[in-house]
């Protein structure tokens, strides 16, 4: 028996992301944050093109130019934001530093996310002993805090293999350490969402259809846990950048020859009280704005996607 045309029910128009987007357009702060963040990303991506100086050029670091104040103070047109104690153009160094910090942050969080998502999915979907064991591990890891583990690990690495090797591998090690220590946050959140999603009947429906566990996990459940992941992802990048900065500040991060924002601040710290405030203050502000923007974006996403982050 066919229904007559009149019987057809037409669905309500409008898409899921539509209201998120319209809410976004309505929120000036969120737009501003996004623009600034995109600007940062762009700048980081294009650092070699945008930077007024090529940092690889031997002439880049000229002690003659050391500690020139930003151009609006010194009137020196060559260096918009002044130079640091080594005579490097601060703008170029900050551009490259931002690039480095963002790279470390994003790569580290990618590792966290991959690891966390896999573990969270497995723990949540399979449940039972595996879940119990993995979550115990996550709890333990989480209670030790990534900073703690990173500090200890980096310190040990430095003393074990010497700083020489460390400085060569600094970036990779930082990414790995920050990446490997924060997975529990992702894992727990994913697991919580998976547990919630697993209760939902569409998963059962898929099982009843005979669809394989792997496909259910990745095709059905995973897309539905994306909104909390997105929120954590944003916030975690901010956290990873802060962690990197803090580690650099302790002398456990990027070496002075390859400065990230954190090591720039750390190096400029000595000049803070000496009159050459810009060496420390400008990278600090750059860092703070970057993190603020990421946090604002994260907040905004959290408010609008309204996921439940991990909680017991």
């Amino acid at each position, binding site marked *: 028996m066919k229904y007559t045309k009149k019987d057809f029910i037409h669905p309500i128009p409008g898409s899921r992301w539509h209201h998120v987007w319209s809410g976004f357009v309505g929120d000036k702060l969120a737009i501003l944050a996004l623009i600034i963040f995109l600007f940062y990303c762009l700048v980081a991506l294009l650092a070699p093109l945008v930077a007024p100086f090529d940092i690889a050029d031997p002439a880049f670091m000229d002690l003659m130019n050391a500690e020139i104040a930003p151009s609006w103070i010194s009137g020196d047109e060559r260096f918009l934001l002044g130079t640091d104690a080594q005579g490097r153009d601060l703008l170029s160094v900050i551009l490259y530093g931002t690039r480095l910090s963002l790279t470390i942050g994003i790569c580290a969080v990618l590792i966290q996310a991959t690891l966390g998502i896999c573990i969270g999915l497995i723990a949540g979907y399979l449940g039972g002993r595996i879940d119990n064991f993995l979550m*115990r591990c996550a709890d333990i890891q989480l209670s030790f805090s990534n900073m703690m583990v990173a500090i200890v690990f980096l310190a040990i690495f430095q003393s074990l293999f010497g700083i020489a090797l460390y400085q060569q591998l600094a970036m990779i090690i930082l990414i790995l350490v920050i990446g490997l220590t924060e997975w529990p946050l992702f894992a727990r959140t994913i697991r919580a969402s998976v547990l919630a999603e697993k209760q939902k009947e569409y998963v059962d429906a898929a099982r009843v259809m005979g669809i394989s566990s792997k496909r259910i996990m990745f095709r059905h459940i995973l897309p539905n846990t994306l909104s909390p992941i997105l929120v954590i992802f944003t916030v975690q990048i901010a956290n990873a950048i*802060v962690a990197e900065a803090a580690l650099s500040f302790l002398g456990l991060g990027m070496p002075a020859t390859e400065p990230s924002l954190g090591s720039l601040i750390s190096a400029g710290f000595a000049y803070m009280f000496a009159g050459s405030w810009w060496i420390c203050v400008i990278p600090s502000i750059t860092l*703070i704005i970057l993190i603020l923007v990421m946090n604002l974006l994260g907040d905004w996403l959290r408010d609008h996607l309204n996921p439940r982050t991990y909680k017991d």
Partner: protein
Amino acid sequence: MLIFLLRRLVQACFVMIIISIISFAIQDKLGDPVQQMVGMTVSPEERNQLRNELGLNDGFFSQYWRFAKGAIHGDLGTSYYYKEPALDVILNKLPATLELAFCAILIIIFVATPCGVLAAIKPRHLLSRLLMIVSSIGLSVPIFIVAILMVYVFSIELNMAPSFGRGQTTEIFGLWHSGLFTKDGLKHLLLPSLSLAIALMPIFVRLIRAEMMEVLQSEYIRFAWSKGLSAPRIYFKHALKNTMLPVITVGGIQAGTLVAYTILTETIFQWPGMGFLFMDAVNRVDTPLVSAYLIVVGGIFVITNTLVDLIYGLVNPTVRLASHGL
């Protein structure tokens, strides 16, 4: 209760074994204890003999077993620099760190709670908006910048508080050098604990706000309103207690961050605590100290986590410790 503690104990053993393996590995790999003991003048043959006597030529596991046995008896090796048992050195510095953390926690509790509650119950109020902006910014300013700023403003420019060290301490019960009982000690405590608190405060303000707002949306709060209870009663008796449950959990997790942050704070303020000691030990390649620090910190985490779970179980009647096997 007993079972709960027993379970915890099993877990603690598991954690401590892992930590002790790591710390043993450090001790084993870093530096040659024989060299540290006898200096350069001893011949290689003599050294080898000494190595044999000390069992340093044995296999990894028998060495680890010896290390673990020593660790159980409180022997974590001797610090190269302090020439004292590493555990003693660390335990000497423990009070300083604990006092710092304790004060920071106090500040967090007594400032973050009212702020979070205010921001939750009057979300449109100017003050709570300001609070949220400040906490957003606070969340984004790394702790070391906060600490530097504090030193600059309060110590150097305003000359209000000392910038380093613990100041005058008094001894309590013959085992604890406390800075809490002298004016000088408290003055020294002010800036470090404040910057430590400021670093963690935004997380808690926001968490309390978010949780409180969620709790305020719940049916039982609506029911409480419909019963005609007074507003303070609803906010502080009905809502706050429920709000605190997730806060306690997160608080337990943040304990780890707190310890990590003490390293930063202590470094900047020259606070003679464990964190400062640890960074020093790292710079001096004082491996026994580093591994002892690891073990002590591991112990602290295990204890705090157990405490947090216990508190959680006490506050939350639905999680009877029975379900943990009371």
